[in-house]
Each structure stands twice: as C-alpha cells, then as structure tokens.
C-alpha cells in the first residue's frame, strides 16, 4: 500500500503532474474554471526555483509560455473556453515553430462568456481547428483526478518528444472534483526531455529533422544561434516562399504526428469483449456512461464503453474495429454533436451511429444515457 495518497482537486492534480513532469515555467491569466491551476503554480513554482507570471491577457499568456520554452524551460499555461479562443493565434505559432508546451483548457459552457461555472465538452473541435491553417494537433482528455495527474505528465512528454504544443482537455466536473490520487508513481515516472543539439554550433540547422522527423532544439543562449519565425521556413529556420519548402515543412509537421499515432493514441475499452452495442464517451461523461453500461449489462444487453483518452489525433483504427464489432454506437457528449461527426465518418459504413448530447450546463447522467440507449435498442 502506497503512503503517498492524497485527496486532490482535478486542477490541483494537473499542477502536481506538471511539476512531476518537470514544469519550470507557467504564464497565464485567471479564468474560471481553470484558475486554481494558475494559483497553485504561482505558489509552487518559485519554491523549486521555477517562474510563474500572470500576464496581461490570455494572448500574452500563450506567447510568454512559448518564450519560456524557447529559453529552455518546460512551460505550461491553462485557460477555459473564451481564453482558449484567444490562445489560438499563438498556438498556431507553437505548431509552426515546433515549440513544446502544454495548454490546459478546462471546458465550460459557451459560446462567448456562456456558462462560466458549468461544465461543457464544447471545445472538442476547437482543439483541432481553433487556430487557422492545417497544423498538427495532440489533445488528451482524462476522466479522473488520478488520470489528470498521469495524463498531464504524458502531455509534457509528448510535447517534448514531438516538439509541439499539446492540449490537455478537462471539463469543469473533473477539474473541480476531489478524489484520491496516488502520487507515489512520481518516482517511477518516465520523463522525456526534448532532443537538444550536441554537434558543432557553427552551421546548426534548427529545423533539419532526424529520421524520426523531429529536429533538435537548442535553448536560446546556449551558443546555437537560430532564427525562429512564424513564417513558413526551411531547415535553416529562415522564411521562404518556395512551394517546395512550404510543402516539405507542412508534410513533415503533419507526418511527425501521423507516424507516431500508435504512441500518441490512448483509449480505454470497458466490457467490449463480447459487446454488440457500444457507448463512446470521454471526460466526465464517460463516468456516467460506464454506469449505464453496467445497468444495460444487468438487463442482459451486451453493452460496452469505448473511451478515447487521446481526442486528437482521432483513434480511427480502434473506432473502425469497434464499428465492425457492434451493431450500434451511441456517442454521448456535452455539446451539440462534435466527436460524433468523426465517429460517423469512420464508423457509419459498418454500424448505426446515434448521438446523445446536452448543452444546458448540466452533466449528462447515467439515467438519461440509459433511457436513450433503451429507446435506440428497441
């Protein structure tokens, strides 16, 4: 039995995970329901010699987070819906300039100021398409306080490994929920740090990728002089209008995620072994869905739960396999239908896909998914 079990709030577990992963820099702006992440970072970072700064706005929070990472520190920022909208500009910069960092979005009801203290899962598509232009996206979505701790570490590792911003999606429910968390895993945690150049400083090519498609990243001030820009650039880091350069850069940016999907895509399968009916749900909704699955099983229905933990890139292969196994999939999410469109895209050839959503700021409870499932299965 571990002796490092604590009762933590979801947002608190996020900061604990970030610190365990090696976070040394945080720049952000207060916004409900993510504010505790900033508050706890402000308290804990200077105590380990790290830095916290409250910026003048969300845009600056994202910009400073990228600046901190370029100076060599593992960096994070956290926000919620309206702030996530503002972060999109520099999130795109992070993608094109390949700057590792973690952006937490504790989702709340939208659009606009919406329902600041109510839960939502309305930013699933914004996490993918929020910033303009095609770009690589990694977004993860845990469903318990323990998993927030574990997945936050995972987000930092993926950011460092793939040199890209990683989005951690939470919802107000799991962010403000308190559960026990085993922090003892801290000592056995695998920590990944970005590849840094070790060769000659003269002639360093900051965007020349190795075979794994990831270039070495030098910290500012270490002698590897480089130019970092949000313009389309070649391996030297300098801007170019050449169609070949643009194609090469974009292809590599997308491919570096694509070829590592196996490592990036995480999901949970619950009672799916013999299932002919599945619910697909994530975050807080997946907890209700699990309950529904158990009740349907009691009724003799062979139900199971598929829970994507990695939202982007899409768990396409797993969803296709699922669609070949079951007759019907219900996608339940706290929005008007976002993830369900992706499920339909990959699954509708093989099985029936139904949607259950809720947008009134109330969580989806097990009863309503149960009633909906019984109706669909009639």
């Amino acid at each position, binding site marked *: 039995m571990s002796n490092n079990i604590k009762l933590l709030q979801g947002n608190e577990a996020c900061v604990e995970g970030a610190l365990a992963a090696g976070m*040394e*820099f945080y*720049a952000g702006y207060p916004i409900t329901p993510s504010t505790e992440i900033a508050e706890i970072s402000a308290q804990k970072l*200077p*105590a380990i*010699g790290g*830095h916290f*700064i409250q*910026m*003048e*706005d969300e*845009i*600056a929070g994202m*910009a*400073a*987070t*990228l*600046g*901190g*990472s*370029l*100076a*060599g*520190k593992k*960096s994070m920022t956290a926000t919620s819906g309206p702030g996530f909208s503002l972060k999109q*500009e*520099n999130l795109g*910069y992070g993608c094109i300039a390949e700057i590792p960092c973690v952006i937490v979005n504790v989702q709340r009801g939208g659009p606009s100021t919406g329902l600041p203290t109510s839960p939502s899962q309305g930013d699933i598509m914004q996490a993918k398409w929020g910033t303009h232009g095609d770009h690589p996206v990694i977004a993860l979505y845990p469903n318990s306080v323990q998993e927030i701790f574990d997945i936050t570490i995972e987000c930092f590792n993926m950011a460092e490994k793939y040199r890209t911003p990683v989005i951690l999606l939470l919802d107000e429910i799991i962010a403000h929920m308190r559960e026990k968390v085993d922090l003892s895993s801290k000592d056995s945690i695998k920590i990944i740090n970005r590849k840094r150049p070790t060769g000659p400083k003269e002639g360093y090519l900051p965007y020349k990728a190795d075979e794994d498609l990831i270039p070495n990243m030098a*910290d*500012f*001030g*270490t*002698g590897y*002089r*480089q*130019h*970092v*820009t*949000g*313009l389309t650039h070649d391996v030297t880091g*300098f*801007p170019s209008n050449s169609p070949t350069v643009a194609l090469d850069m974009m292809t590599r940016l997308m491919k570096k995620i694509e070829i590592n999907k196996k490592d990036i895509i995480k999901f949970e399968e619950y009672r799916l072994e013999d299932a002919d009916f599945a619910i697909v749900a994530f975050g807080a909704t997946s907890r209700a869905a699990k309950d529904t699955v158990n009740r349907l099983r009691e009724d003799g229905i062979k139900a199971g739960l598929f829970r994507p933990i990695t939202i982007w890139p899409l768990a396409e292969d797993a969803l296709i396999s699922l669609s070949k196994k079951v007759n019907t999939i219900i996608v339940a999410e706290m929005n008007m239908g976002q993830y369900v469109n992706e499920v339909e895209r990959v699954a509708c050839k093989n099985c029936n896909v139904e949607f259950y959503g809720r947008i009134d700021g109330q969580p989806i409870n097990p009863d309503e998914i149960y009633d909906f499932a019984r109706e669909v299965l009639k």
Partner: protein
Amino acid sequence: MNTSALVKEYFREEKLPHIWCPGCGHGIVMHAVVRAIDNLKLDPEKICIVSGIGCSSRASGYMNFNTLHTTHGRALAFATGVKMANPNLEVLVLTGDGDCSAIGGNHLIHAARRNIDITTIAFNNNIYGMTGGQYSPTTPTDSYGTTAPYGNIDKTFDLCNLAKAAGATYVGRSTAYYAKQLTTLVENGIKNKGFSFIEAVSSCPTYYGRKNKKGDAVEMMKSLKDDYIDIKIAEKKPELAESKILMGEFYNKPEEEYTEKYQKIIDLLKKER
C-alpha cells in the same frame, strides 16, 4: 569598428540586402541598434532579439544573435517569457508603431509597468508599411492613409509619454537622421536594468510620404533633421522649440527590476526550506 566590419560581425550577410524600400529609415535604426551592442561589448550569444510583425520586425532576421520573429503585436509578450525563463539573456525587442501601440499596446504598457529588463526599440514610421499604407496610432491627425482617404480623424499617440506613464524606467526618442544620438539612447537603454523604451523615428517615403506629398526620401530625411529638437536645447531656449518635436533622453530613473524581484522570492523560499 567600421560599418563593413560591423556587418561581418553582427549580421547574417547571406540574408542581405534587406527587404526595405529605397529611402526607408529602418536600415539606419537597425544599424544604430547593432552599433550600440558593439559599443557595449555584449556577448552576442547572450543577446536575444525579439520582433513582431511589420516592416520593423523583419530586422531580427538580418541580425546574427538568438532571434525570434513572433506574431503581430506579441513580441513583448514572447520576450517577457524568454526573459523570465532565463534572466541571464539580454533581451531586445524591435517593433513598429502599429505593432507596439495598436495590436500590441496592452503588452507594451504592462511590460513597462513591470519594469522587466527588456530594451524596446520602436521603429516609428507613422504608417502600416507592410500592408501598404494604412493609418496607425502615430499617423498625424489629418494625414492620409489608404484607410484614411478623407484624412485621419484619430488623435496620435505619443509613444514616449505612453511608455513613461506606464512605468518604463528609461525613455528616449531620436530619429534616423540623428543616428549617433539614437545609438547612445539604445546603449543607455540596454544599460538600464529595467524596461527601456526608445522611439526611433523612421520614415516611409513609399507609403506615408507619397500619400501625404512629403517629397522624396531625401526631403523626408531632412524633416527628420529639421522637425526635431533636443530636449536639453529646448529647455534652455524654448523659442527654438516652437512647432518642433522633442527628442533626446526624456526619463532615466532606475527602479528595482522585475526578474530580480522574483529571484528574491525564490531565494526566500529556498531559505525557508
């Protein structure tokens, strides 16, 4: 160091010539910044030059240091992150009038308020040049821009007053004509351990000049000479300052710097442990 030696030492020669139009004052301003760095014998490896978007912000690409060409208006926000995460870096921000006082106005006043050790050089050409001549916050009232076809009805920002009021601890203005004075101001700005703001008045013969019938590049350069008067002279002989714009060192009062204040918190917590 003569200019060609300066170019060899501090510029990415293969990236030159620059993209600025013939007669643009930005090259002189960029030269003054590098000259100041050379005069202070700073370690180029420890210098980080951050810029935003616009004509001014292309300067970072030509300068052989750690350079960061960011998004429009956000240079100071990126620079704040760089400086906080590694206070040993000497951080300079190169920006323009639109970049730092319109889209990036919020970042300017808050960087100044914090007194974080960043030296900001604002290339002020009174217009949005990169997009073809729209009015900016420093376009004089009644002047023309492509988006002010009937004359600009906006009041203009005095960038130096803005920076000073917001809390910058070193503030000065000079023009591309007075390159030597500009160099000195940049030097003093870098030496100030805190937020320094230097307005470098430049000229845009292509858009601002043409639209407002200000003559050719030479005539515009003449205005950068004749329209300005040093604050010290103006104080002694106010009659000379009539209808002139002040330049020189406006403010120089060091205060405790931001990252040093934060370091005190770190040190205090270390002791308590």
